């Protein structure tokens, strides 16, 4: 019999691990971004799972507000990162490295 906070807390931790692995091991920038987002989602899940341990039914609202802020910031970061990636691509770089100098002919 496993409690909801522990179950979702461990799930969040594992998700963070999956995201971290993707961030380190994948070469393509968009995959790294997806990994970063998953890592963030895992940490949020951990925080909200822990917030649900409040006795009496209603959860602790402070982590909820913090995670809401976190979701919005994560989306902003993803959007700006994609903008930068597009700019790198336009300047001749490719998505698996950030070199934009064209090789000497």
């Amino acid at each position, binding site marked *: *019999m*496993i409690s*909801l*906070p522990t*179950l*979702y807390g*461990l*799930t969040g*931790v*594992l998700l963070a*691990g*999956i*995201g971290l692995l993707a961030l*380190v*091991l994948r*070469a*393509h920038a*968009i*995959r790294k971004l*997806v*990994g970063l*987002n*998953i890592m963030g*989602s*895992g940490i*949020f*899940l951990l925080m*909200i*799972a*822990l*917030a649900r*341990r*409040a*006795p009496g039914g*209603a*959860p602790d*609202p*402070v982590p*909820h*507000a*913090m*995670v*809401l*802020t976190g*979701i*919005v*910031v994560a*989306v*902003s970061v*993803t*959007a*700006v990162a994609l*903008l930068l*990636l*597009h*700019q790198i*691509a*336009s300047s001749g770089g490719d*998505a698996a*490295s950030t070199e934009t100098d064209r090789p000497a002919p």
Partner: protein
Amino acid sequence: MPWFDLGLAAMLLWFAGHAVGARRLHASATVYICFGLLLTLAWVRLDAPDLALAEAALGAGVTGALLLKAIASLGSRPVPLLVPAHDAWRVHEPLGGRLLGAIALAAVLGVVLVGALGMAVVSLPGEAVGLRPEVEARLEASGVRHPVTAVLLNFRGFDTLLEIVVIWIAGVVCWTFPRRRELVLRPDLQLTSLVRFVDPILLVTAAYLLWAGSRAPGGAFQAGVLLGAGAALRLMAGEVLPKAGVIPRFLLSLGALVFLTVGVAAVLTGLPFLGYGPGDAGTWLLVIEVGGTLSIGYALMLLFQRGRGAGA
């Protein structure tokens, strides 16, 4: 035995693994959208309806749409950036190209992170009061009746101010990039008809969420995201953003400006920064929320559009 939650947790892990491990980028983004929707269910199970609203719209919807759009436009470059099938688990160059070393590093980091956090989760007490009693004690004075909104806009209002500034920065960064030829979307009759039907519903729902946020899950962020989603739909159906000028800049900055003005006005009347007089808080919070909603909606529309039609 919480079978539903066990199943949901297993699916979350499976979808996350698939999102990072998929061969094709397009599959990666699509599975990530599904992951976001499953995460919405997890928020509901954890009694976090505000987060569920935000996750469904932002985490699954906006992030997924941005990823798909980026993959599509990267793929249309002369040099294809949709890395072909050999984009397997290989190392980023600066690590020296030694695959084994990178896997070892990742394994160590992963084990340390998962192990330490996992042990912490398991060893924490099953019940923790947290800050709920303090929030409930001051809820009357906060101006709203929903605890999460009270924390977000009043007790931790400074964090929310900074968050709105972050969104503003994202919009400004969008405008600093030079105009470039954008992916041209041919408006589709079915999509246009659908958007004509759905868009008013989205607007009314956004207004409702903004108003309802004072006593139920909802508030400025959820409403703003709906506005942004409606705008993204209209963009996909062929609408063109107005050119840069005073009004777009004003709309983007409105949230931060209103919040700052309210905070500074408080200082001028003798209260602390972002303090509120007795009984005033509800009105000021609504004013701040309206500004925030418009700014968030506009910023999302801008980010989705990626700077087209708004060159400096």
